[in-house]
C-alpha cells in the first residue's frame, strides 16, 4: 500500500512544485517603443483553407479573405463602410442608372501586364451572362445591366433601374477584376491559379498546409512585408498556442470568446472587428409544416431571447440586429421584441401549443457559435412550451438539406447571411426571386419582393421610407429571423509585427489593410 500512497502523494505534490515555477504570463516583461521595419516575412495563421478560388463563383467567406489579398475590386470600403476608389480612381454618375469608372493608370497584374478596360468589361460579362448569371449579378441589376468600354481607361455600366446596392456591391470579393485576356486565351485557369493586381502574388501552395505569398513587384499599393506566409490552422487551440510561442504573428478567430482565450498571452493586440454579416434563424415555411402558418413563425420570433444570444453565445461581442445589419452606421432597428405571452397565445391560436422542431446547424471545425446560438434558442423557446431538438450536421450534409433540396429537408437552421458593404444588400435573401438559394424554405411573396425592389431603387440615405417598409414586412413575415451580428477577432503579436485592423468590415476581409502589415523593431534593447 505504501507505494500506492507515495504515487498518490507525488500527484498531490505536483502543483506545489509548479508553484515554484514562474507563470508564463509573468515572463517577457514590458516592451519598448515599436517601429515598423519594411521587408521580412509576416505569418498569418488562417482559420480555414481557401478552396473556392474563382472569384465570380466563390461563395465561401474563407476564400474571400485570400481572394482580396491577391485581387482588387473597382471600389472598396473604408472603415465606415463608405465606398472609396480602388482600381477605379474616380467615377461619375451622369444619371441614376449610369456609372462611368476611370481606371488607375498604375494598376498592373502581377505578371506585368497593365490592367485594361477590357479586363473589367469581360469580368462583369461573366457575371451578367444572360444564360447563366452568377449569384452576385442580382446586386448589380442582373442581366439587364450592360457594361461597355468607353476607352482603354474608362468603363460604363448602364442599369435598367436605379440601384442602391450597385456601388457597394462592386467592392465585394466576387467583383474583383480578373486578368480576362489570359483567361479567355485559355492560358490561365482562375479556379486553380490566382493572378491579380493586389499587393501579393502566390508563390506556392500546399493544400490544407500553407500558402506562401510574395510581394507583387508591380502592385500599385505596395506592401510593407516581402512575404506573407499563411499556414492553414483550423484548430483554435493551435492558433492560440502558435500566437503564444511566436510561430505565427497574426491570426483570425470566429470565436467571440477569443479575447478571453488570448488574455493570457503577453504582447498580444486583440481587436474585435464588427462585421455586417449576421446570424439568422431560418424556418422552413415551404410545404406542409407548422411554419407555413405565419402565427407560428411570429411566435418563434417573439419567443427568442436575442439579447441573451448576444450576451451568452456571442460573449457580448456582437449586436442584436434587424434585417439591415446593426453593424451599418444608422441601421434600421429591429421591430422584433421578446414577448413570451404573445408567443404562447399565437401558438395556441394556431393550434400548436406544444410545438416541437429540429434546428440543424453546421459543424465547421472549431466554430462553436452556431451551436451556442441554437442552444440559447432552445432554452428560450422551452419557456414558451416549444421543444427544440438541436442537431449538428457535417457542412456538406447541411448544405444539401438546407440550401440545395427543394423544398428544404429541414425544420429550421441557424446560419449566417453575408450582408456585404451595402445596408440593403442582404434584403434580397428574403425573396426567392432575387436569391435562388432561398427557394426551398422561403415563402414566395411577390409583395415582399416588390417592397425589396422598391427599397433598392429608392433615393436617399439608409433609412428611406421604402427600406423601412421592407424591413418591417420582412420581420412580420418571420420566415428568416435576424438574430445578432457576427464579429470576427483578429489578434497579432504587437512585439513582432505592426498591423492595421479595421474596426468594421463588410466583405469578410479581416486582412483588408494587408499592405500595412509589417515586421516590428522593438526598442529598448
Amino acid at each position, binding site marked *: 500500500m505504501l507505494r500506492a500512497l507515495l504515487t498518490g502523494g507525488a500527484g498531490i505534490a505536483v502543483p506545489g512544485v509548479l508553484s515554484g515555477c514562474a507563470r508564463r504570463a509573468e515572463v517577457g516583461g514590458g516592451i519598448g517603443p515599436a517601429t515598423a521595419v519594411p521587408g521580412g516575412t509576416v505569418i498569418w495563421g488562417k482559420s480555414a483553407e481557401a478552396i473556392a478560388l474563382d472569384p465570380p463563383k466563390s461563395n465561401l467567406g474563407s476564400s474571400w479573405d485570400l481572394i482580396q489579398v491577391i485581387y482588387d475590386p473597382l471600389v472598396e470600403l473604408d472603415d465606415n463602410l463608405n465606398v472609396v476608389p480602388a482600381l477605379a480612381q474616380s467615377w461619375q454618375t451622369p444619371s441614376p442608372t449610369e456609372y462611368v469608372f476611370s481606371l488607375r493608370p498604375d494598376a498592373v497584374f502581377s505578371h506585368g501586364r497593365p490592367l485594361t478596360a477590357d479586363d473589367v468589361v469581360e469580368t462583369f460579362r461573366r457575371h451578367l451572362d444572360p444564360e447563366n448569371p452568377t449569384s452576385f449579378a442580382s446586386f448589380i441589376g442582373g442581366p439587364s445591366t450592360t457594361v461597355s468600354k468607353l476607352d482603354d481607361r474608362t468603363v460604363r455600366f448602364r442599369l435598367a433601374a436605379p440601384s442602391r446596392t450597385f456601388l457597394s456591391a462592386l467592392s465585394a470579393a466576387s467583383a474583383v477584376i480578373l486578368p480576362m485576356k489570359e483567361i479567355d486565351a485559355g492560358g490561365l485557369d482562375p479556379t486553380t491559379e490566382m493572378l491579380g493586381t493586389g499587393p501579393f502574388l502566390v508563390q506556392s501552395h500546399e493544400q490544407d498546409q500553407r500558402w506562401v505569398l510574395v510581394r507583387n513587384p508591380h502592385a500599385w499599393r505596395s506592401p510593407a512585408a516581402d512575404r506573407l506566409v499563411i499556414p492553414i490552422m483550423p484548430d*483554435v487551440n493551435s492558433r492560440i498556442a502558435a500566437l503564444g510561442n511566436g510561430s505565427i504573428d497574426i491570426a483570425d478567430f470566429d470565436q467571440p*470568446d477569443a479575447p478571453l482565450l488570448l488574455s493570457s498571452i503577453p504582447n498580444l493586440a486583440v481587436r474585435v472587428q464588427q462585421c455586417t454579416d449576421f446570424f439568422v434563424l431560418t424556418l422552413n415555411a415551404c410545404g406542409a409544416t407548422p411554419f407555413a402558418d405565419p402565427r407560428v413563425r411570429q411566435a418563434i420570433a417573439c419567443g427568442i431571447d436575442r439579447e*441573451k444570444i448576444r450576451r*451568452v453565445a456571442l*460573449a457580448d461581442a456582437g449586436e442584436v440586429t434587424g434585417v439591415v445589419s446593426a453593424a451599418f452606421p444608422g441601421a434600421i432597428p429591429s421591430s422584433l421584441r421578446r414577448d413570451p405571452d404573445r408567443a404562447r397565445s399565437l401558438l395556441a391560436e394556431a393550434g400548436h401549443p406544444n410545438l416541437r422542431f429540429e434546428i440543424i446547424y453546421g459543424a465547421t471545425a472549431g466554430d462553436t457559435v452556431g451551436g451556442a446560438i*441554437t*442552444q440559447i434558442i432552445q*432554452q428560450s423557446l422551452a419557456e414558451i412550451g416549444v421543444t427544440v431538438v438541436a442537431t449538428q*450536421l*457535417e457542412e456538406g450534409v447541411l448544405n444539401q438539406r438546407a440550401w440545395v433540396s427543394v423544398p428544404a429537408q429541414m425544420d429550421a437552421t441557424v446560419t449566417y447571411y453575408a450582408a456585404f458593404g451595402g445596408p440593403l444588400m442582404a434584403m434580397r435573401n428574403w425573396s426567392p426571386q432575387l436569391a435562388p438559394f432561398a427557394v426551398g424554405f422561403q415563402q414566395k411573396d411577390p409583395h415582399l419582393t416588390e417592397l425589396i425592389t422598391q427599397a433598392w431603387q429608392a433615393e436617399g440615405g439608409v433609412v428611406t421610407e421604402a427600406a423601412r417598409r421592407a424591413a418591417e414586412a420582412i420581420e412580420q413575415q418571420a420566415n428568416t429571423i435576424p438574430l445578432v451580428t457576427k464579429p470576427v477577432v483578429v489578434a497579432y503579436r504587437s512585439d513582432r509585427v505592426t498591423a492595421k485592423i479595421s474596426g468594421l468590415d463588410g466583405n469578410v476581409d479581416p486582412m483588408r489593410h494587408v499592405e500595412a502589415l509589417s515586421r516590428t523593431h522593438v526598442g529598448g534593447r
Partner: protein
Amino acid sequence: MTDSSTTGAPAAARPARSAPRSLRIPFRGDPLGWLGLLLLVLLVGVGILHPLLPLGDPLASVGPRVAGPSARFLLGTDELGRSLLPRVASAIGVTIVLSAIAVLVATVVGVAIGCCAAYASRRVDQLITRVTDVLFSFPTILIAVLVSVVLGPGRPAAIVAIVAVTLPTMIRVARAEALRIVELDFVTSAEVAGARLGWIVRRHLLPNMREAVIVQCTYSISLGMLVEGGISFLGLGVQAPDTSLGALVGAGRLYLTVAPSYLLIPGFVLGLAVLAFNLVGDSLRAQRREQ
C-alpha cells in the same frame, strides 16, 4: 406439490442454495474491490439520480460564462453560463449508460459468436478468430472515426464504436470459455442424452460462462468509457446540448488557460468512473484466479 419435479421442494424444505461463492461475497477481504464498488455505486447513483438531487438545471444559462468554481457554482460554469455541477452529474450518467448499452450489445453478440465458434467447424472457427484478431489490432479511434463517418456523429455512433472496440475481446473470452466448457464431461453426457445446441447453450454453456463474461464486461465498460470520452472529445460522439464526460472535456479544452477546472474536473470524474469499473473487474478476476 403439483409441479415440483423440476422446481424442487418448497423453499422451507430445501437446504440453503449454495450459489457460486464469488457471486455471493464479491470481494472477500479485498479492499480494492470494495473501493471500486463504493465508487461505482456512488457514480452510477449520481449519474442516474441527478435529476432528483438539488444540483440545478444542466441546460439553463444561469451564471457568468466560463467561470471557475465558486460558492454558487461549485464546479464553475461553461461557455453558455450553465452550471457545471449538474452538467457533470448528467454527463456521468450518459457516459456510463452509453458504455453499458454498448457493452451489453457486445456481450450478447460476442457470446453468441463465441458459442458458435466453439461448435462450428474448424475452418469457420479459424475465420472468426482471424477476423477478431484483425479487428482487435485495429486502432480504436480509426474504428470510431469510420463509424461516425458512416453514421454521422451522435449517440449511435458512439455506441457502435464502443461495440466495435469491445467486441473482439468479448468474442475471445466467450470462445475460450465455450471451448473449455464444451469439452467437459457433462456436456458430452447431455449430447448423448439427445440435447441439441440450443439446450446445451442455455443449460450448460451460458451459466458456466457467466463469471468470466461478467469480469470481461467490467473491463469492457471501463474501456468503453475511455473510447466514448475520446470520440466525444473529438466531437464525433454525443452532440450538444446533450453532454457526456468526454464532450465536456472537449468543450473545456478551449478554455484550458482561462478556466482549467472546466476540462480537469470532468476529466477527473471520467478517470474515477473508469477506475471504479477496473477495480471491480480486477478484484473479480483475482478472486477467480484464486479459486
